[in-house]
């Protein structure tokens, strides 16, 4: 029987609960093992102390300061506790948890600390995606935008060189025409584009000469005379 086996049997051996054959084996092992013997001796001391304590008269026990000691420990534990479980009739004060901002901050901190390389890649991909989206959408950024039907776009000579523009409800329309260049030896020239993509809203190249009774329109309504 090795020492581990002996140690496991020390308690029942001390209490006299072992089978006689096993008990004899433990006894033989204790003779050969000083450490096991020392452990048995310690076990006997503890048992003796406990027996004395349980059998001693209460009057002989010094209880002075017992109450104060207990209350001091209770106060210390209350101050230390962050939360407490509720029990019937007892109102407890539950400490406030971290706020939303603090939780988000902790989450982001954990994400970037633990998955920093992946987070960096994801962030870079997000930036590239936004740039690409703006670049593609910016193809029509220079073209005028419609506010509604009949909204005229006044352009100077030469007009807008792009032939695409964003129409109603985000629809991109191809313009019917636009003026590339315009020169007038006399009078004034103005290009008025009603903003449509069909012949129903065709471009008008105005050329007005003073004294002929026609004035340049101020808007797309073609006001004259």
């Amino acid at each position, binding site marked *: 029987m090795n020492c581990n086996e002996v140690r496991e049997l020390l308690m029942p051996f001390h209490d006299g609960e072992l089978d006689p054959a096993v008990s004899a084996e433990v006894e033989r092992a204790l003779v050969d093992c000083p450490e096991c013997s020392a452990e048995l001796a310690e076990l006997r001391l503890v048992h003796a102390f406990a027996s004395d304590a349980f059998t001693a008269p209460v009057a002989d026990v010094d209880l002075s300061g017992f109450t104060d000691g207990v209350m001091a420990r209770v106060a210390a534990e209350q101050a230390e506790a962050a939360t407490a479980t509720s029990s019937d009739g007892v109102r407890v004060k539950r400490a406030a948890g971290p706020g939303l901002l603090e939780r988000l901050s902790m989450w982001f901190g954990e994400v970037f600390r633990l998955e920093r390389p992946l987070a960096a890649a994801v962030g870079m991909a997000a930036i590239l995606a936004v740039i690409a989206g703006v670049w593609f959408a910016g193809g*029509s950024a220079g073209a005028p935008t419609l506010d509604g039907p009949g909204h005229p776009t006044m352009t100077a000579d030469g007009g807008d060189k792009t032939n695409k523009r964003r129409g109603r409800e*985000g629809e991109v329309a191809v313009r019917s025409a636009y003026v590339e260049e315009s020169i007038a*030896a006399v009078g004034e020239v103005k290009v008025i584009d009603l903003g449509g993509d069909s012949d129903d809203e065709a471009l*008008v190249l105005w050329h007005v*000469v003073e004294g002929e009774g026609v004035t340049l329109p101020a808007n797309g309504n073609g006001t004259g005379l």
Partner: protein
Amino acid sequence: MLQRILSALLLTAALAAPSFADGARGAPSEPTSATPAVAAKVDVTVIHATPEGTMDRRLAPMARPLTRAFKAYKGFTWLDEQSSAVRVDDERKLTLPNGSELAYRFLGADPDGYLRVHIEVGGLRSTVRVKDGGTFFQAGRGYLDGMIVLVFKAAAAR
């Protein structure tokens, strides 16, 4: 850890989604022509627009664009028209009722399908890029109690 990665990816997708949607919606295909047109059919209609009056029945096909372009005018009278096939750099002329002369040339078709038309009338010189089959107006010169409106329609000849 996996949950955090998925959350980060979802957040990225949510931020980038509007840009992609906007970009996808805003890029139509440009009209292209396989071979550049060497000639175009150009229709010129001469109209007398007046503040009062009615729409000439002969102008019914273009009544809507006329009324939308010239809202201050109620009367539109057909005066003349010319329709011809014009080769690149060929010039056509038309005398207008107010004594001016209209000269126009087809300058060719651009790679995006737009036709280039050059017009000269009453001291005005202008080059207009018009969609194949598209229409544009030239207006403003006074005539009688109204003004002259020229309607140009150009289509690549095939």
